[in-house]
């Protein structure tokens, strides 16, 4: 368990450091477009992916860097993709919101909210068809609760007893609107109505996320059907990197309370120290090592070449 906790700490820290550099690339005007940072939500991706095998699958969202890294993507190729470089995961065609990596079972981030819900069911259907026990974790934000395709997907998944875990990351804001203004009734009542196994968890506590996910994944793996996991979390930053004036939709003191009291890294870090699973020096060494790795990965991507303009029409057709 100590090894698992340390691994999860390392994964969360890697995501945090990656995202801080993404923000830095944006503010230095090195990265055009948008990026949706996962800072504050790291425990969800890490806790869920810790419960998956490497040959299991995930589908991801526009806020997907954390999912990709947690499932095993390497930061070099991710930075390159974010910068539109040829060496990126998608040759610079996908960018921040569309990173896919078949090698690690990442079926793709998706900038259509809820856009992966049915695709994830299709991947899960293939597991059943092939009589393979590979599970699919379908990540989406609470904003996707407004998309009909999610309900089509859950209905099918339950009818067909598909090995899929729907992971709802409730970071509380549908872009710039609190979810309570967009979401009628009780979130958990929705998957319950389809007969899915349901659970909700403190999405800032990575140990709780892992402990809650693992039995849902194993249940799905055995053929007992889909599950819905509601992770209550918080987006520490704006909807995207450019969303810096947030006063008009949420209060500063609310953000301060979450960042000071509910930081998933701080929560696990304190636990590790308290349990004497690690000492401060060890955690500092880990941070120094990961910081050096992330800096090197980012610099590698900055130095990497862009694609040739005529590649714009490549990969349209097989």
């Amino acid at each position, binding site marked *: 368990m100590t090894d698992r906790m340390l691994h999860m700490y390392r994964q969360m820290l890697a995501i945090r450091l990656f995202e801080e550099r993404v923000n830095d690339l944006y503010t230095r005007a090195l990265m055009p477009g948008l990026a949706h940072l996962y800072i504050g939500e790291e425990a969800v991706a890490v806790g869920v992916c810790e419960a998956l095998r490497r040959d299991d699958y995930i589908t991801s969202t526009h806020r997907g860097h954390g999912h990709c890294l947690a499932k095993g993507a390497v930061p070099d190729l991710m930075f390159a993709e974010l910068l539109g470089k040829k060496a*990126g*995961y*998608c*040759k*610079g*065609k*996908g960018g921040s919101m*569309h990173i*896919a990596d*078949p090698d690690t079972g990442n*079926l*793709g981030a*998706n900038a*259509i909210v809820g*856009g992966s*819900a*049915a*695709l*994830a*069911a*299709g*991947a*899960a*259907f*293939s*597991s059943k*068809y*092939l009589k393979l026990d590979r599970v699919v974790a379908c990540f989406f934000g609470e904003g996707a609760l407004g998309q*009909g*395709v999610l309900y*089509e*997907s859950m*209905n*099918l998944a339950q*009818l067909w007893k598909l090995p899929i875990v729907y992971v709802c990351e409730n970071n509380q804001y549908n872009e710039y609107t609190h979810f309570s203004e967009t979401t009628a009734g009780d979130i958990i009542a929705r998957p319950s109505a389809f007969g899915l196994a349901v659970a909700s968890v403190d999405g800032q506590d990575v140990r709780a996320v892992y402990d809650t996910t693992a039995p849902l994944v194993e249940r799905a793996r055995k053929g007992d059907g889909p599950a819905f996991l509601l992770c209550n979390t918080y987006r520490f930053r704006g909807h995207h990197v450019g969303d810096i004036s947030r006063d008009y939709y949420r209060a500063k003191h609310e953000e301060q309370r979450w960042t000071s009291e509910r930081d998933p890294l701080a929560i696990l870090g304190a636990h590790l120290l308290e349990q004497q699973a690690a000492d401060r020096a060890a955690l500092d060494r880990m941070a120094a090592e990961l910081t050096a790795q992330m800096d090197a990965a980012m610099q590698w991507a900055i130095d990497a070449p862009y694609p040739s303009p005529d590649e714009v029409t*490549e*990969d*349209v*057709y*097989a």
Partner: protein
Amino acid sequence: MSKELSYLEAIREALLEEMRRDPKVFVLGEDVGAYGGAFGVTQGLYDEFGEMRVIDTPISESAIVGVSIGAALRGYRPVAEMQFADFISCAFDQIVNQAATLRYRYGGRASVPIVVRAPSGGNVGGGLYHSQNPEAWFIHRPGLKVVAPSTAYDAKGLLKAAIRDDNPVIYFEHKYLYRRAKGPVPEGDEIVPIGVAATRREGNDATLLTYGAMVAPSLEAADRLSKEGVEVDVIDLRTLLPYDKAAIFASLEKTNRVLVVHEDVKTLGIGSEISAVIMEERFDTLDAPVMRVTYPDTHPPFSHVLEGANLPNADKITGALRRLAAY
């Protein structure tokens, strides 16, 4: 003499043969299982292949296509049935945003070999949501292929080609032709390649480009013109994306006149695109403006009087050909 099948039977035979040939092929859609599909296209498949390969779904077009995409990413070749082409708009995002772009988004590291079968077309008294010809929406989306057979032969051969293609293919099967079009079909591994038009009738005086249920009235009109001494080259496009530009240009070289006929509405139908391309690339070849006979820019009404008077037919096509020849 090879056997003759109806257009509908030809579609079924293509599914049957491809499912026997390749265990990665499965079909899914509303009522496609034991019931055999709303039009009976999948009748018999359930008995042979069972519920894991002939899959009844809820009335959830987005999920039908989305599940197909996910399964395709894991090596399958799903054939999704939209009960009517009119319902394909419910799956629009899955087709145009997900399936069409996936290979591109992945930087070429995956492909989406799915077929979406869409029973389309009017003249069947179906009204607004059982008569549409929505092919132009999909022709406008790079990453998709779009086919629309007019004969039993092509219905079978193009579906086999579509199933074997590594790209998402939208397969428009015209409901009016299901039991009216009959003929020989390809045997064994023979397919009708995607992207290749067929010349249905040869002539040197005008080129008529069409597809689907408009081929028959186009041929009838061409026969009438023949009696007046005008010989029309009738080309069945068969594939709308990518359409056979070489065949169009080759015919234009000898006729110098082009008429496009489609059952789809006029504005931004494929006739608009073909006309523009001819203008851009073969302007010097033209002796007359490119002309079009299409359904008007309106909806398919229920009343057969309203619909029947407005669908393109042999009389309207004949009139247009006369004007074109006389220009």
